[in-house]
Protein backbone atom coordinates (compact mmCIF):
# COMPACT_ATOMS: atom_id res chain seq x y z
CA UNK A 1 0.00 0.00 0.00
CA UNK A 2 1.45 3.38 -1.02
CA UNK A 3 -0.37 5.51 1.54
CA UNK A 4 1.08 6.68 4.81
CA UNK A 5 -2.28 6.90 6.53
CA UNK A 6 -5.51 5.04 5.79
CA UNK A 7 -8.74 4.53 7.67
CA UNK A 8 -10.32 1.19 6.80
CA UNK A 9 -13.96 0.95 7.86
CA UNK A 10 -13.13 2.54 11.21
CA UNK A 11 -15.75 2.75 13.93
CA UNK A 12 -15.38 4.66 17.18
CA UNK A 13 -17.91 5.36 19.92
CA UNK A 14 -17.84 7.03 23.32
CA UNK A 15 -20.62 5.36 25.27
CA UNK A 16 -23.76 5.71 23.19
CA UNK A 17 -22.29 8.44 20.99
CA UNK A 18 -21.09 7.09 17.66
CA UNK A 19 -18.35 9.39 16.37
CA UNK A 20 -17.07 7.29 13.47
CA UNK A 21 -18.98 4.57 11.65
CA UNK A 22 -17.37 2.57 8.88
CA UNK A 23 -15.18 5.56 8.10
CA UNK A 24 -13.11 4.76 5.05
CA UNK A 25 -10.54 7.16 3.68
CA UNK A 26 -6.98 7.08 2.35
CA UNK A 27 -5.02 10.27 2.82
CA UNK A 28 -2.60 11.37 0.10
CA UNK A 29 1.06 10.48 0.61
CA UNK A 30 2.08 14.08 1.16
CA UNK A 31 0.84 17.64 1.21
CA UNK A 32 -1.37 19.71 3.45
CA UNK A 33 -4.89 18.37 3.95
CA UNK A 34 -7.28 20.67 5.80
CA UNK A 35 -10.20 19.17 7.67
CA UNK A 36 -13.10 21.59 7.70
CA UNK A 37 -16.28 20.81 9.55
CA UNK A 38 -18.60 21.96 12.32
CA UNK A 39 -17.58 21.65 15.98
CA UNK A 40 -18.17 18.21 17.43
CA UNK A 41 -18.33 16.42 14.07
CA UNK A 42 -15.37 14.18 15.01
CA UNK A 43 -12.33 15.95 13.55
CA UNK A 44 -10.27 15.71 16.74
CA UNK A 45 -11.21 12.04 17.17
CA UNK A 46 -9.96 11.45 13.63
CA UNK A 47 -6.64 13.08 14.52
CA UNK A 48 -6.34 11.14 17.77
CA UNK A 49 -6.99 7.88 15.93
CA UNK A 50 -4.36 8.87 13.36
CA UNK A 51 -1.90 9.56 16.19
CA UNK A 52 -2.64 6.21 17.83
CA UNK A 53 -3.89 7.96 20.99
CA UNK A 54 -7.26 6.24 20.56
CA UNK A 55 -7.93 2.70 19.42
CA UNK A 56 -10.74 2.14 16.91
CA UNK A 57 -13.73 0.15 18.11
CA UNK A 58 -13.86 -1.58 14.75
CA UNK A 59 -11.93 -1.44 11.49
CA UNK A 60 -8.31 -0.45 11.22
CA UNK A 61 -6.19 2.68 11.14
CA UNK A 62 -3.19 1.93 8.97
CA UNK A 63 0.03 3.87 9.40
CA UNK A 64 2.99 2.91 7.27
CA UNK A 65 5.62 1.09 9.35
CA UNK A 66 8.29 3.37 10.78
CA UNK A 67 6.20 6.49 10.25
CA UNK A 68 7.29 9.31 12.52
CA UNK A 69 4.49 11.45 13.81
CA UNK A 70 4.36 14.95 15.27
CA UNK A 71 1.40 16.82 16.69
CA UNK A 72 0.09 20.17 17.88
CA UNK A 73 -2.75 19.47 20.30
CA UNK A 74 -5.71 21.74 20.92
CA UNK A 75 -4.10 22.45 24.31
CA UNK A 76 -0.48 23.59 24.58
CA UNK A 77 0.64 20.59 26.70
CA UNK A 78 3.94 22.14 27.78
CA UNK A 79 6.15 21.02 30.63
CA UNK A 80 5.97 23.69 33.33
CA UNK A 81 9.26 22.59 34.86
CA UNK A 82 11.27 23.34 31.71
CA UNK A 83 12.18 26.55 29.90
CA UNK A 84 10.90 27.24 26.37
CA UNK A 85 14.11 25.96 24.81
CA UNK A 86 14.17 22.84 26.99
CA UNK A 87 10.52 22.12 26.23
CA UNK A 88 11.63 21.62 22.63
CA UNK A 89 15.00 20.08 23.42
CA UNK A 90 13.39 17.36 25.55
CA UNK A 91 11.21 16.25 22.63
CA UNK A 92 14.00 16.15 20.07
CA UNK A 93 15.45 12.84 19.01
CA UNK A 94 17.65 11.38 16.31
CA UNK A 95 15.11 12.04 13.53
CA UNK A 96 14.34 15.63 14.50
CA UNK A 97 14.15 18.16 11.69
CA UNK A 98 15.23 21.54 13.09
CA UNK A 99 17.25 22.82 16.06
CA UNK A 100 15.21 24.20 18.97
CA UNK A 101 16.61 27.74 18.74
CA UNK A 102 15.91 28.04 15.04
CA UNK A 103 12.26 27.08 15.53
CA UNK A 104 11.83 29.39 18.50
CA UNK A 105 13.33 32.30 16.58
CA UNK A 106 11.12 31.50 13.58
CA UNK A 107 7.99 31.89 15.68
CA UNK A 108 9.26 35.09 17.30
CA UNK A 109 10.31 33.52 20.60
CA UNK A 110 14.03 34.20 20.19
CA UNK A 111 13.98 36.35 23.34
CA UNK A 112 11.96 33.85 25.35
CA UNK A 113 14.38 30.88 25.27
CA UNK A 114 14.82 30.89 29.03
CA UNK A 115 11.25 31.66 30.04
CA UNK A 116 9.12 28.99 31.71
CA UNK A 117 5.59 28.40 30.33
CA UNK A 118 3.99 30.00 33.38
CA UNK A 119 5.92 33.19 32.57
CA UNK A 120 4.57 33.29 28.99
CA UNK A 121 1.35 34.65 27.52
CA UNK A 122 -1.25 32.37 25.93
CA UNK A 123 -0.04 33.28 22.43
CA UNK A 124 3.59 32.60 23.33
CA UNK A 125 2.71 29.18 24.72
CA UNK A 126 0.79 28.37 21.55
CA UNK A 127 3.77 29.31 19.42
CA UNK A 128 6.04 27.22 21.62
CA UNK A 129 3.77 24.19 21.16
CA UNK A 130 3.87 24.71 17.39
CA UNK A 131 7.65 25.18 17.38
CA UNK A 132 8.05 21.91 19.32
CA UNK A 133 6.02 19.96 16.76
CA UNK A 134 7.91 21.46 13.81
CA UNK A 135 11.31 20.92 15.45
CA UNK A 136 10.43 17.30 16.15
CA UNK A 137 9.43 16.91 12.50
CA UNK A 138 8.03 13.72 11.11
CA UNK A 139 6.36 12.03 8.18
CA UNK A 140 2.92 12.99 9.43
CA UNK A 141 2.19 16.30 11.12
CA UNK A 142 -1.16 16.53 12.92
CA UNK A 143 -2.38 20.04 13.72
CA UNK A 144 -5.50 20.46 15.83
CA UNK A 145 -6.55 24.09 15.51
CA UNK A 146 -2.95 25.19 15.95
CA UNK A 147 -3.38 28.91 15.28
CA UNK A 148 -6.36 29.48 17.54
CA UNK A 149 -5.90 32.61 19.63
CA UNK A 150 -3.02 34.04 17.60
CA UNK A 151 -3.33 37.54 16.18
CA UNK A 152 -3.15 38.03 12.41
CA UNK A 153 0.53 39.04 12.22
CA UNK A 154 1.77 36.31 14.58
CA UNK A 155 -0.31 33.74 12.74
CA UNK A 156 1.31 34.75 9.44
CA UNK A 157 4.77 34.43 10.98
CA UNK A 158 4.03 31.00 12.52
CA UNK A 159 2.43 29.72 9.32
CA UNK A 160 5.69 30.56 7.58
CA UNK A 161 7.43 28.02 9.80
CA UNK A 162 4.78 25.31 9.61
CA UNK A 163 4.08 25.66 5.90
CA UNK A 164 7.30 26.84 4.26
CA UNK A 165 7.11 28.35 0.76
CA UNK A 166 3.55 29.50 1.35
CA UNK A 167 2.21 26.06 2.04
CA UNK A 168 3.18 24.43 -1.19
CA UNK A 169 6.39 22.73 -0.08
CA UNK A 170 6.08 20.09 2.59
CA UNK A 171 9.34 18.14 2.60
CA UNK A 172 7.42 15.00 1.72
CA UNK A 173 5.36 15.09 4.90
CA UNK A 174 1.62 14.65 5.16
CA UNK A 175 0.06 17.44 7.23
CA UNK A 176 -3.48 17.20 8.56
CA UNK A 177 -4.79 20.58 9.66
CA UNK A 178 -8.02 20.81 11.65
CA UNK A 179 -9.39 24.32 11.35
CA UNK A 180 -12.59 26.34 11.31
CA UNK A 181 -10.99 29.11 9.28
CA UNK A 182 -11.79 28.76 5.56
CA UNK A 183 -9.22 31.37 4.51
CA UNK A 184 -6.52 29.57 6.50
CA UNK A 185 -7.43 26.29 4.79
CA UNK A 186 -7.43 27.93 1.35
CA UNK A 187 -4.06 29.57 1.97
CA UNK A 188 -2.07 26.48 2.92
CA UNK A 189 -3.81 23.34 1.64
CA UNK A 190 -3.48 21.14 -1.38
CA UNK A 191 -6.67 19.34 -0.36
CA UNK A 192 -9.63 20.30 1.75
CA UNK A 193 -11.91 17.66 3.26
CA UNK A 194 -15.37 18.99 4.00
CA UNK A 195 -16.70 16.97 6.89
CA UNK A 196 -20.05 16.47 8.58
CA UNK A 197 -21.09 14.40 11.54
CA UNK A 198 -21.30 12.69 13.89
CA UNK A 199 -20.88 10.05 12.70
CA UNK A 200 -18.10 11.63 10.73
CA UNK A 201 -18.30 11.50 6.96
CA UNK A 202 -16.44 13.18 4.14
CA UNK A 203 -18.95 15.29 2.21
CA UNK A 204 -16.53 16.49 -0.40
CA UNK A 205 -12.82 16.52 -1.21
CA UNK A 206 -11.58 19.73 -2.79
CA UNK A 207 -8.41 19.41 -4.81
CA UNK A 208 -6.88 22.88 -4.88
CA UNK A 209 -4.92 24.09 -7.88
CA UNK A 210 -1.21 24.92 -7.33
CA UNK A 211 -0.53 28.38 -5.91
CA UNK A 212 0.41 30.06 -9.17
CA UNK A 213 -2.79 28.83 -10.83
CA UNK A 214 -5.10 30.05 -8.07
CA UNK A 215 -7.09 32.91 -9.50
CA UNK A 216 -9.48 35.04 -7.50
CA UNK A 217 -12.33 33.44 -9.45
CA UNK A 218 -11.23 29.89 -8.58
CA UNK A 219 -10.88 30.83 -4.91
CA UNK A 220 -14.33 32.40 -4.91
CA UNK A 221 -15.75 29.21 -6.45
CA UNK A 222 -14.08 27.18 -3.68
CA UNK A 223 -15.48 29.52 -1.01
CA UNK A 224 -18.97 29.03 -2.41
CA UNK A 225 -18.53 25.24 -2.52
CA UNK A 226 -17.25 25.19 1.09
CA UNK A 227 -20.05 27.50 2.22
CA UNK A 228 -22.74 25.36 0.68
CA UNK A 229 -21.44 22.17 2.31
CA UNK A 230 -20.84 23.81 5.67
CA UNK A 231 -24.29 25.36 5.74
CA UNK A 232 -25.73 21.90 5.22
CA UNK A 233 -27.10 22.26 1.69
CA UNK A 234 -25.13 19.24 0.57
CA UNK A 235 -26.16 16.95 3.41
CA UNK A 236 -27.37 13.51 2.71
Amino acid at each position, binding site marked *: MGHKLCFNMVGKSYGDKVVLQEFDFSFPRQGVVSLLGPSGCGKTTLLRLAAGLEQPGSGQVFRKAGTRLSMVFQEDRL*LDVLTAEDNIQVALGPGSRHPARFCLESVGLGDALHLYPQEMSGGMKRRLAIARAVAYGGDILLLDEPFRGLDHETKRQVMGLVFPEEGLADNGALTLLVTHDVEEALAVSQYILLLQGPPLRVCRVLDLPPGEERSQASLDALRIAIGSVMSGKNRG
Partner: protein
Amino acid sequence: MMRSIIKSNRAKKMGAGLAVACFWLMVWQLAYWHVGKEILIVSPFHAARRLTELALGLPFWRSVGATCLRVIIGFLAALVAGGVLAGLTARFLPLYILFSPLLNVIKSTPVASFIILALIWIKSGGVPVFIAFLMVVPMVWTNLYAGLRHADPELLEMARVFQFSPWKKLRFIYIPALMPYFTAACSTGLGFAWKSAVAAEVIAHPENSIGLRIYNAKIYLETTDLFAWTIGIVLISVMLERIALLLLARLERRLLGGIGGRD
Protein backbone atom coordinates in the same frame (compact mmCIF):
# COMPACT_ATOMS: atom_id res chain seq x y z
CA MET B 1 15.59 45.78 46.55
CA MET B 2 14.23 42.23 46.18
CA ARG B 3 16.82 40.93 48.64
CA SER B 4 15.91 43.53 51.27
CA ILE B 5 12.20 42.65 50.89
CA ILE B 6 13.00 38.94 51.36
CA LYS B 7 15.19 39.78 54.38
CA SER B 8 12.50 41.91 55.98
CA ASN B 9 9.89 39.17 55.38
CA ARG B 10 12.21 36.63 56.98
CA ALA B 11 12.78 38.93 59.95
CA LYS B 12 9.02 39.40 60.33
CA LYS B 13 8.47 35.64 60.25
CA MET B 14 11.20 35.06 62.82
CA GLY B 15 9.77 37.79 65.03
CA ALA B 16 6.31 36.22 64.87
CA GLY B 17 7.75 32.76 65.62
CA LEU B 18 9.62 34.12 68.62
CA ALA B 19 6.50 35.86 69.93
CA VAL B 20 4.50 32.63 69.65
CA ALA B 21 7.26 30.66 71.42
CA CYS B 22 7.37 33.26 74.21
CA PHE B 23 3.59 33.06 74.60
CA TRP B 24 3.59 29.28 75.08
CA LEU B 25 6.62 29.35 77.38
CA MET B 26 4.72 31.87 79.47
CA VAL B 27 1.68 29.55 79.54
CA TRP B 28 3.93 26.68 80.63
CA GLN B 29 5.56 28.83 83.34
CA LEU B 30 2.12 29.95 84.60
CA ALA B 31 0.97 26.32 84.72
CA TYR B 32 4.12 25.48 86.71
CA TRP B 33 3.43 28.30 89.18
CA HIS B 34 -0.20 27.27 89.43
CA VAL B 35 0.50 23.56 90.12
CA GLY B 36 3.56 24.29 92.24
CA LYS B 37 4.82 20.68 92.37
CA GLU B 38 8.04 19.81 90.50
CA ILE B 39 7.05 16.16 90.39
CA LEU B 40 4.01 16.95 88.23
CA ILE B 41 5.24 19.80 86.07
CA VAL B 42 8.64 21.45 85.89
CA SER B 43 9.50 25.00 84.92
CA PRO B 44 10.61 25.48 81.30
CA PHE B 45 13.85 26.98 82.60
CA HIS B 46 14.60 23.93 84.73
CA ALA B 47 13.83 21.64 81.81
CA ALA B 48 16.11 23.67 79.53
CA ARG B 49 18.89 23.68 82.14
CA ARG B 50 18.59 19.90 82.55
CA LEU B 51 18.64 19.41 78.78
CA THR B 52 21.85 21.45 78.59
CA GLU B 53 23.42 19.36 81.36
CA LEU B 54 22.42 16.15 79.58
CA ALA B 55 23.70 17.44 76.25
CA LEU B 56 27.15 17.98 77.77
CA GLY B 57 27.53 14.24 78.46
CA LEU B 58 28.44 11.51 75.98
CA PRO B 59 25.56 9.12 76.96
CA PHE B 60 23.04 11.71 75.75
CA TRP B 61 24.54 11.79 72.27
CA ARG B 62 24.93 8.01 72.22
CA SER B 63 21.19 7.64 72.90
CA VAL B 64 20.25 10.40 70.44
CA GLY B 65 22.51 8.94 67.75
CA ALA B 66 21.20 5.39 68.15
CA THR B 67 17.55 6.51 68.12
CA CYS B 68 18.16 8.76 65.12
CA LEU B 69 19.75 5.86 63.28
CA ARG B 70 16.78 3.59 64.03
CA VAL B 71 14.30 6.26 62.92
CA ILE B 72 16.23 7.00 59.71
CA ILE B 73 16.61 3.31 58.77
CA GLY B 74 12.90 2.65 59.40
CA PHE B 75 11.89 5.79 57.56
CA LEU B 76 14.10 5.17 54.50
CA ALA B 77 12.96 1.55 54.27
CA ALA B 78 9.35 2.81 54.42
CA LEU B 79 10.07 5.32 51.63
CA VAL B 80 11.40 2.54 49.41
CA ALA B 81 8.64 0.05 50.24
CA GLY B 82 5.88 2.71 50.05
CA GLY B 83 7.26 3.97 46.75
CA VAL B 84 7.41 0.49 45.20
CA LEU B 85 3.92 -0.32 46.49
CA ALA B 86 2.52 2.96 45.14
CA GLY B 87 4.11 2.34 41.75
CA LEU B 88 2.78 -1.22 41.52
CA THR B 89 -0.72 -0.46 42.81
CA ALA B 90 -1.07 2.59 40.54
CA ARG B 91 -0.07 0.44 37.57
CA PHE B 92 -1.96 -2.76 38.39
CA LEU B 93 -5.48 -2.37 39.81
CA PRO B 94 -5.69 -5.97 41.19
CA LEU B 95 -2.65 -5.21 43.37
CA TYR B 96 -4.37 -2.09 44.67
CA ILE B 97 -7.43 -4.16 45.60
CA LEU B 98 -5.16 -6.73 47.25
CA PHE B 99 -3.03 -4.32 49.28
CA SER B 100 -5.41 -1.54 50.26
CA PRO B 101 -7.21 -3.50 53.06
CA LEU B 102 -3.86 -4.47 54.57
CA LEU B 103 -2.63 -0.88 54.58
CA ASN B 104 -5.94 0.31 56.04
CA VAL B 105 -5.60 -2.25 58.84
CA ILE B 106 -2.11 -0.95 59.61
CA LYS B 107 -3.41 2.63 59.62
CA SER B 108 -6.23 1.91 62.07
CA THR B 109 -4.45 -0.52 64.46
CA PRO B 110 -3.03 1.07 67.66
CA VAL B 111 0.73 1.37 67.49
CA ALA B 112 1.08 -0.29 70.94
CA SER B 113 -0.43 -3.53 69.56
CA PHE B 114 2.20 -3.67 66.85
CA ILE B 115 4.99 -2.86 69.31
CA ILE B 116 4.02 -5.74 71.59
CA LEU B 117 3.67 -8.11 68.64
CA ALA B 118 7.04 -6.98 67.29
CA LEU B 119 8.60 -7.61 70.72
CA ILE B 120 7.55 -11.24 70.37
CA TRP B 121 8.90 -11.53 66.85
CA ILE B 122 12.19 -9.59 66.88
CA LYS B 123 15.01 -8.37 69.13
CA SER B 124 14.37 -5.19 71.11
CA GLY B 125 16.87 -3.15 69.05
CA GLY B 126 14.97 -3.89 65.87
CA VAL B 127 11.51 -3.11 67.25
CA PRO B 128 11.69 0.71 66.84
CA VAL B 129 13.03 0.30 63.29
CA PHE B 130 10.22 -2.07 62.40
CA ILE B 131 7.56 0.11 64.02
CA ALA B 132 8.79 3.30 62.32
CA PHE B 133 8.76 1.39 59.03
CA LEU B 134 5.29 -0.04 59.59
CA MET B 135 3.75 3.29 60.57
CA VAL B 136 5.27 5.26 57.71
CA VAL B 137 4.66 2.80 54.83
CA PRO B 138 0.89 3.48 54.54
CA MET B 139 1.51 7.23 54.67
CA VAL B 140 4.08 7.13 51.88
CA TRP B 141 1.98 4.72 49.84
CA THR B 142 -1.20 6.83 50.13
CA ASN B 143 0.60 10.05 49.18
CA LEU B 144 2.64 8.65 46.31
CA TYR B 145 -0.33 6.70 44.96
CA ALA B 146 -2.35 9.94 44.87
CA GLY B 147 0.59 11.71 43.17
CA LEU B 148 0.92 9.02 40.51
CA ARG B 149 -2.81 9.10 39.82
CA HIS B 150 -2.57 12.88 39.43
CA ALA B 151 0.08 12.79 36.68
CA ASP B 152 -1.39 14.86 33.85
CA PRO B 153 -2.88 12.47 31.22
CA GLU B 154 -2.56 15.18 28.55
CA LEU B 155 1.17 15.44 29.19
CA LEU B 156 1.46 11.66 29.10
CA GLU B 157 -0.20 11.68 25.68
CA MET B 158 2.19 14.38 24.53
CA ALA B 159 5.09 12.24 25.77
CA ARG B 160 3.71 9.31 23.80
CA VAL B 161 3.50 11.31 20.56
CA PHE B 162 7.03 12.68 20.97
CA GLN B 163 8.31 9.24 22.02
CA PHE B 164 9.73 10.21 25.41
CA SER B 165 11.89 7.52 27.00
CA PRO B 166 10.59 6.09 30.32
CA TRP B 167 13.30 8.10 32.12
CA LYS B 168 12.18 11.37 30.50
CA LYS B 169 8.57 10.60 31.40
CA LEU B 170 9.55 9.89 34.99
CA ARG B 171 11.76 12.94 35.27
CA PHE B 172 9.61 15.59 33.61
CA ILE B 173 6.03 14.37 34.13
CA TYR B 174 5.80 11.94 37.05
CA ILE B 175 8.36 13.47 39.41
CA PRO B 176 6.96 17.02 39.18
CA ALA B 177 3.47 15.57 39.80
CA LEU B 178 4.76 13.45 42.69
CA MET B 179 6.95 16.04 44.40
CA PRO B 180 4.26 17.85 46.46
CA TYR B 181 2.88 14.49 47.61
CA PHE B 182 6.35 13.12 48.33
CA THR B 183 7.28 16.22 50.33
CA ALA B 184 4.08 15.92 52.35
CA ALA B 185 4.78 12.21 52.92
CA CYS B 186 8.33 12.95 54.10
CA SER B 187 7.28 15.82 56.34
CA THR B 188 4.48 13.97 58.16
CA GLY B 189 6.15 10.56 57.84
CA LEU B 190 9.35 11.64 59.55
CA GLY B 191 7.46 13.11 62.51
CA PHE B 192 5.41 9.94 62.72
CA ALA B 193 8.51 7.75 62.52
CA TRP B 194 9.98 9.64 65.47
CA LYS B 195 6.91 9.37 67.62
CA SER B 196 6.31 5.69 66.93
CA ALA B 197 9.99 4.70 67.21
CA VAL B 198 10.40 6.42 70.58
CA ALA B 199 7.13 4.84 71.77
CA ALA B 200 8.53 1.48 70.70
CA GLU B 201 11.78 2.20 72.57
CA VAL B 202 9.86 3.09 75.73
CA ILE B 203 8.18 -0.33 75.63
CA ALA B 204 11.04 -2.43 74.20
CA HIS B 205 13.92 -0.75 76.14
CA PRO B 206 16.72 -1.25 73.63
CA GLU B 207 20.15 -0.16 74.87
CA ASN B 208 21.28 3.37 74.01
CA SER B 209 17.92 4.82 73.23
CA ILE B 210 15.93 7.93 74.04
CA GLY B 211 12.97 5.68 74.86
CA LEU B 212 14.93 3.86 77.57
CA ARG B 213 16.00 7.20 79.08
CA ILE B 214 12.38 8.34 79.16
CA TYR B 215 11.33 5.03 80.69
CA ASN B 216 13.97 5.37 83.42
CA ALA B 217 12.92 8.95 84.10
CA LYS B 218 9.37 7.72 84.57
CA ILE B 219 10.41 4.81 86.86
CA TYR B 220 12.52 7.07 89.10
CA LEU B 221 10.00 9.94 88.91
CA GLU B 222 12.61 12.26 87.40
CA THR B 223 10.07 14.62 85.90
CA THR B 224 12.72 17.20 84.97
CA ASP B 225 14.57 14.56 82.91
CA LEU B 226 11.29 13.53 81.28
CA PHE B 227 10.60 17.09 80.20
CA ALA B 228 14.21 17.62 79.11
CA TRP B 229 14.16 14.52 76.93
CA THR B 230 10.81 15.46 75.48
CA ILE B 231 12.13 18.90 74.50
CA GLY B 232 15.17 17.15 73.02
CA ILE B 233 12.94 14.85 70.94
CA VAL B 234 10.92 17.78 69.60
CA LEU B 235 14.06 19.75 68.69
CA ILE B 236 15.72 16.80 66.93
CA SER B 237 12.50 15.92 65.11
CA VAL B 238 12.12 19.48 63.80
CA MET B 239 15.79 19.56 62.79
CA LEU B 240 15.55 16.23 60.95
CA GLU B 241 12.43 17.39 59.12
CA ARG B 242 14.15 20.62 58.06
CA ILE B 243 17.18 18.68 56.79
CA ALA B 244 14.94 16.24 54.91
CA LEU B 245 12.99 19.06 53.22
CA LEU B 246 16.22 20.85 52.32
CA LEU B 247 17.62 17.68 50.74
CA LEU B 248 14.36 17.14 48.86
CA ALA B 249 14.39 20.67 47.47
CA ARG B 250 17.98 20.13 46.33
CA LEU B 251 17.11 16.79 44.75
CA GLU B 252 14.17 18.35 42.92
CA ARG B 253 16.37 21.17 41.57
CA ARG B 254 19.01 18.71 40.43
CA LEU B 255 16.50 16.39 38.75
CA LEU B 256 14.58 19.09 36.93
CA GLY B 257 17.31 21.63 36.26
CA GLY B 258 19.71 19.20 34.58
CA ILE B 259 18.60 19.76 30.99
CA GLY B 260 19.80 23.36 31.12
CA GLY B 261 17.04 25.07 33.07
CA ARG B 262 17.70 28.49 34.59
CA ASP B 263 18.29 27.19 38.12
